[in-house]
């Protein structure tokens, strides 16, 4: 059975569904997402994790509620005198009524069980049709177009393969979408996020059984620290 079929079984597997992930997003990242300060790459990572993690959905909802309370507590600013009159005039424009404004959402042709919809919008393909580019040592990637300081990509690591040992100048967030990997910090499977900063020097190894597909978001280039890795640094733009 292919990875996609396996995931379908989980998704359709009755009321229980997949268990929630074990590795979550740090609070300061959820806060940046709630406040709107997170850039597009980090926001994409958060939205994808929230799709797969009911626990972080609750945590994120609590931070939205914090934002609501903080705004409720702000001293009100004076609006221009005709603000409401202008708004009323706009309510009469065509398209202001719900039926006209919100056409029913069409099912996405690319729906598949590996990539949550918010991510499909950036990949533009279902998991089996991703236009992979080789990155070296058997690892493939595809860059996702995001604005802001972060870089976002999908990574595919062949089952059982190790990624060269590396550290990061900034933060790296890796979210597992298919398969899994292990490093000194634990075992990560679908829905789990590993957050690493410049203090983390790790060598992730993909699980056996199926290729590991991850969404990786970095806010600075990573540095390969192993001998092979150091040689790779010169030409791999990862």
């Amino acid at each position, binding site marked *: 059975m292919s990875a996609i079929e396996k995931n379908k079984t989980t998704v359709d597997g009755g009321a229980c569904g997949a268990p929630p992930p074990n590795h979550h997003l740090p609070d300061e990242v959820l806060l940046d997402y709630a406040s*709107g300060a997170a850039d597009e790459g980090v926001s994409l990572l958060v939205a994808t994790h929230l799709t797969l993690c009911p626990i972080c959905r609750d945590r994120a909802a*609590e931070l939205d509620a914090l934002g609501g309370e903080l705004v409720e507590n*702000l001293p009100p600013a004076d609006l221009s005198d005709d603000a409401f009159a202008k708004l009323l005039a706009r309510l009469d424009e065509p398209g202001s009524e719900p039926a006209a404004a919100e056409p029913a959402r069409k099912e996405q042709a690319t729906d598949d069980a590996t990539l949550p919809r918010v991510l499909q919008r950036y990949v533009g393909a279902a998991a089996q049709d991703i236009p992979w580019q080789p990155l070296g040592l058997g690892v493939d990637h595809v860059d996702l177009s995001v604005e802001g300081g972060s870089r976002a990509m999908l990574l595919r690591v062949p089952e059982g393969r190790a990624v060269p040992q590396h550290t990061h100048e900034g933060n790296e967030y890796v979210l597992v979408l298919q398969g899994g990997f292990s490093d000194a910090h634990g075992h990560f499977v679908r829905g789990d996020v590993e957050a690493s900063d410049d203090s983390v020097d790790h060598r992730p190894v993909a699980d056996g059984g199926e290729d590991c597909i991850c969404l990786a978001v970095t806010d600075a280039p990573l540095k390969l620290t192993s001998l092979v890795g150091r040689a790779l640094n010169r030409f791999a733009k990862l």
Partner: protein
Amino acid sequence: MSESEAAARPEPGPAEHAVWMRAVAEERSRGAFARLFAHFAPRLKAYLMRSGSDEQSAEELVQEAMMIVWRRAESFDPKQASVATWMFTIARNKRIDGYRRNNRPELDPEDPALTPQPEPMQDDQVGVRQTAEAIREAIAALPEEQAEMLRLAFYEDKAHSEIADQTGLPLGTVKSRLRLAIGKMRGLVDDELR
């Protein structure tokens, strides 16, 4: 209800806000919409100006946010969020959509990949209104330095890395202080709701 009747009433709270939302959704009531506008529009403008909009764009964003409120009133779910929270998220998203090519990435609630809540978590869901109340009390009870970090994040649109730049604190320190502040807030909220 006339203007003077409205003025004679005590300051309306979250319960009234939810009633107005329902009137907008079900009856397309312009009166209820006017009350929502009177309460929230000046606060949304204050929020937008603090997070970097000039006066004119703040007014325009408030107009657009309130148009969304009118159009999508039916999608407001009082079991998911308070009206204040819903309004905040609409204004926040409008602000982001104004400067980005793409809309803010958000999960699709209809996504077949959405992992559902495990049953035990569904059981101990607390009311939105109690949570909002508990959060308000928690903000008031937080040590000033921690409350200030949360306000900096929400009002001034500062990512934790920018807070580090602005305050001159090392990034790791900002992260741990934010985690502490949020952890403390969550703890206070949980105590309040228990």
